[in-house]
């Protein structure tokens, strides 16, 4: 177990290094000019000399490896630098934005998990019937719908046309922060979260259905039926037990898709989360923020995968050290 954890930590470190080197290189090759990002609208007032000074101040005149080394050292000290567009430390921006995104992603995650699982179980139990076909058709349609387009559709229908939900943002416009209530936040969260979870539902349902169908065709379910168990008993005793693990694992491993989806959803609903910050940072050349977000999202996805693996370790008796079940008595 200890070895396993050490291995994972090592893997995380190499992953982070690789991701930061790669994004550093990509940014270097991209037409983004960090100085322009910093100067922003004051561009006309800044002469070439000042421009060079700013570049020197940020260390932008140094060669690439040196800059990377400096950035890396700073990171090791826990200093991610200052976001150029927010004029605040990157970590503070990420922290604040991440909380908003987390609320969004968590709601979508739970929602798609629960509904997807229920739909998948229903389809699997009724395999081959019209119920199954209907659920499969629905899921396949949703799974092949671009999230961006779906988000626009939801926005148009429920926010613009029906006016059930606000059109965007995370809090009501024009209201001071201290007056924003929890229900305000939830109200703004709901539509983006719903949109984000809709495509998630499809994936979870199809996967659950697939696993359940496999289990129901297994020898041990055949034998359970031979022992007189009814369809419902088979599902409760053997079905759920055997699909729970692969399904929850997939659920944790889906953090990357969730994160990718949240970037799109946040963009459409102008929801002030991490994804939106990433897009802004990219478009406006905020290098420190972009690098920070990239490193952070790698960490986030990694955490999901690690959780999935740990679950297997903890729950599946076949992976536990041999003989512990004997010792229990």
């Amino acid at each position, binding site marked *: 177990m200890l070895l396993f954890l050490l291995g994972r930590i090592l893997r995380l470190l190499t992953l982070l290094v690789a991701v930061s080197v790669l994004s550093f290189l990509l940014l270097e090759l991209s037409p983004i000019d960090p100085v322009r990002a910093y100067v922003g609208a004051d561009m006309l007032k800044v002469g070439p000399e000042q421009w060079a000074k700013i570049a020197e101040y940020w260390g932008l005149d140094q060669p690439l490896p040196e800059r990377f080394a400096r950035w890396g050292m700073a990171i090791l000290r826990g200093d991610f630098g200052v976001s150029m567009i927010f004029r605040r430390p990157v970590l503070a921006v990420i922290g604040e934005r991440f909380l908003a995104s987390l609320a969004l992603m968590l709601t979508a995650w739970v929602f798609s998990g629960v509904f997807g699982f229920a739909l998948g179980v229903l389809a699997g139990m009724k395999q*081959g019937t019209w119920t199954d076909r209907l659920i499969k058709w629905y899921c396949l349609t949703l799974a092949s719908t671009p999230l961006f387009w779906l988000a626009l559709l939801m926005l148009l229908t429920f926010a613009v046309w029906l006016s059930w939900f606000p059109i965007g943002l995370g809090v009501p416009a024009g209201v001071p922060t201290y007056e924003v209530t929890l229900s305000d936040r939830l109200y703004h969260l709901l539509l983006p979260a719903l949109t984000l979870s809709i495509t998630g539902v499809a994936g979870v349902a199809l996967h659950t259905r697939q696993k359940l169908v496999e289990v129901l065709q297994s*020898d*041990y379910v*055949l*034998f*359970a*039926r*031979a*022992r*007189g*168990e*009814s369809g419902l008993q088979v599902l409760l*005793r*053997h079905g759920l*037990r*055997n699909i729970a*693990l692969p399904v929850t694992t997939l659920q944790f491993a889906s953090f990357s898709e969730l994160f990718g989806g949240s970037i799109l959803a946040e963009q459409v609903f102008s929801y002030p989360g991490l994804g939106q910050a990433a897009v802004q940072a990219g478009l406006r050349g905020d290098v420190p923020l972009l690098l920070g977000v990239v490193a952070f999202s790698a960490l986030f996805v990694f955490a999901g995968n690690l959780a999935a693996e740990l679950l297997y370790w903890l729950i*599946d*008796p*076949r992976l536990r050290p*041999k*003989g512990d*079940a*004997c010792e*229990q*008595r």
Partner: protein
Amino acid sequence: MKKEAVTTLLEVSDLSITFTQYISGLRQRTIRAIINLSVNINHGEVLAIVGASGSGKSLLAHAILGILPGNACVDGKMVYAGELLTPARQAALRGREIALIPQSVNFLDPLMRVGAQVRSGIFNGNSTALQREIFDRYHLAVGTEQLFPFQLSGGMARRVLVATAAVGSARLIIADEPTPGLHPMIVRETLAHLRELSATGSAVMLITHDISAALETADRIAVFYAGTTVETAPASDFCGDGELLRHPYSKALWQALPQNGFQPIDGSQPSIDNLPCGCLFAPRCSLASRDCLTTVPELRSLRGGETRCHHAA
């Protein structure tokens, strides 16, 4: 051995099982897996059904239990304890009166402790006490009930599987290939358990490809070939050169055994897509005549057994 008056517990007559398969889109084809199979089993007897591996013998077990997959179509008549075995009755009897002993530990839920799985086959009485009692009877240590299937050794797994069937008071126990590739000692032990079960009055149907195991255990033997039974004979008829046997295939099986000269029969079983129209054994039979190629031999009684051969005497 205690023998009740010989009465039939289960009678299967003219059982056919066909499967509908979809090949490429909506084109479908039917596969006949079991054809006009007839067999019966009496109270307190061990009947072995012997045939080559992969010849669909298990389907007979699944048909009796009513657990065939949805694309299977069953035809024919089964009478259990004097009453027609309908799907509703099968559902009521499964696990209670008719029990299955499966092939391998893969038939146990990999994520469920074995004690709980044995208990799930107990429908009345104190299930924990009954399960402990049966584990004790089969020399399974107290801790065994807490184990997961993958933790069982070969011999333990075998005893647990027998226990799942023995724990209820099933009157018909179907052991489907219960000794696949096992150590001879474990095979002998398992077969002894089956005999014990029949001594207590249960009928035991032993489905196997292992003639020696069948001969060691069974009172009667039904020989299975290409989806049907070609002969049913008392185990004692398998002796000498096989001159007491009625069907050429049974004789060939007997003579193919190492102790009987090891003479293998040429050819292989016909594939289910392409069955001969007359006797199913005709392409390999040295006695085949013109009749054999055109008309299917009916099952007929002969010298205390049954056979499907035009020329048997």
